């Protein structure tokens, strides 16, 4: 960090035990090349105010913990360089559309509950095979390609915070859950449409998406939830009017009879 090059972090503070409403606090943080917003927040925590609360874990845009609002744009703090903004001041706030626990920490429990409600796992009719699997279910590369980008979701909640419908309708399922519903319904190993469709075909489900596309624009992993929602709508309509080809769930593939011999473990080079 360059101690001469300082940048102002305007951080929204809120402690429900002491504050009635959120307020801003300014911190001067030494800036430098390739410095991320998360590193700035860590500097504040370690050197200026240890009471600042924020979430972070992997520091490489994998865990989805550090989603915050940076200069009024939702992004991962570890995935955002301070230099990107070409500004002396950075405004840092918690993600909107989610209840604040403290400072930059938001309550993600309702978000995860919504995610859980659409049953984000493979559902099959062959319960016995699911309980005691004897082999893998076949999935050709082309079938994987149809859903691959939606598997990149890291459940950071950034799409929800960018979504204008989630801002006005607190019961709206949100782009994350809806895109994951499509991801599992389109999986050729899955047979769970009948269980998932009643969850998304509600007054606050898939039909309430305004197609603003803010979720796709904000997603730090390049997932396109708006596309998934449109494809889910198409799937629902094709089932409602009994049009379109219904995919047959994939069967299990037997394990190969012969496996390649394992490479011998290299011997020790130092005796």
């Amino acid at each position, binding site marked *: 960090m360059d101690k001469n090059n300082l940048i102002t972090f305007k951080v929204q503070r809120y402690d429900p035990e002491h504050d009635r409403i959120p307020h801003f606090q300014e911190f001067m943080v030494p800036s430098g090349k390739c410095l991320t917003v998360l590193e700035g927040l860590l500097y504040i925590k370690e050197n200026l105010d240890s009471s600042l609360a924020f979430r972070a874990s992997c520091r490489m845009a994998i865990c989805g913990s550090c989603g915050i609002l940076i200069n009024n744009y939702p992004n991962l703090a570890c995935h955002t360089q301070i230099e990107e903004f070409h500004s002396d001041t950075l405004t840092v706030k918690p993600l909107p559309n989610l209840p604040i626990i403290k400072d930059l920490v938001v309550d993600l429990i309702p978000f995860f509950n919504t995610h859980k409600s659409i049953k984000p796992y493979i559902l099959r009719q062959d319960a016995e095979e699911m309980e005691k699997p004897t082999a893998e279910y076949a999935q050709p590369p082309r079938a994987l390609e149809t859903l691959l980008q939606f598997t990149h979701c890291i459940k950071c909640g950034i799409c929800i915070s960018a979504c204008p419908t989630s801002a006005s309708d607190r019961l*709206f399922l949100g782009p994350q859950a809806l895109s994951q519903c499509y991801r599992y319904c389109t999986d050729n190993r899955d047979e769970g449409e009948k269980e998932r469709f009643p969850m998304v*075909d509600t*007054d606050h489900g898939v*039909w309430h998406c305004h197609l603003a596309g803010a979720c796709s624009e904000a997603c730090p992993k390049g997932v396109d939830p708006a596309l998934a929602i449109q494809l889910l*709508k198409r799937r629902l309509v094709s089932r*409602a009017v009994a049009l379109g080809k219904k995919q047959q769930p994939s069967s299990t593939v037997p394990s190969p009879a012969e496996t390649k011999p394992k490479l011998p473990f290299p011997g020790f080079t130092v005796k």
Partner: protein
Amino acid sequence: MRNTYLWLLQLITGILIAVLLGVHMVLMHLDAILGFFGVDATKITSWESMIERSNQGIWAGLYIALLAVVLYHALNGLRNVILELTPSVRTERVVTRVIVAFGIVTFVFCSYVPIALLSA
């Protein structure tokens, strides 16, 4: 699939409004366009012409159909807006019932005119 059918109907009524309202607009207000195609539309808005059309079942049917699709499209859209702005299970039930009742009453009241004119 209830909401999927409601949304499909919203799409279908939107297309029907464009067609039926298009017919109404061209006949009643855009006589210049009809004149361009060689149709004399000056008499269409006269009282005699209106009564003559009202006696024909097809015109009464068109106007009742236009009333039905406009009511569905507008009230379903209004219901969606209200439910989005006031999300709660109780509100949902009340709003749906009020809007359905309003739609039925308006439809019965307004479709009485073309039906009465059929026998005029």
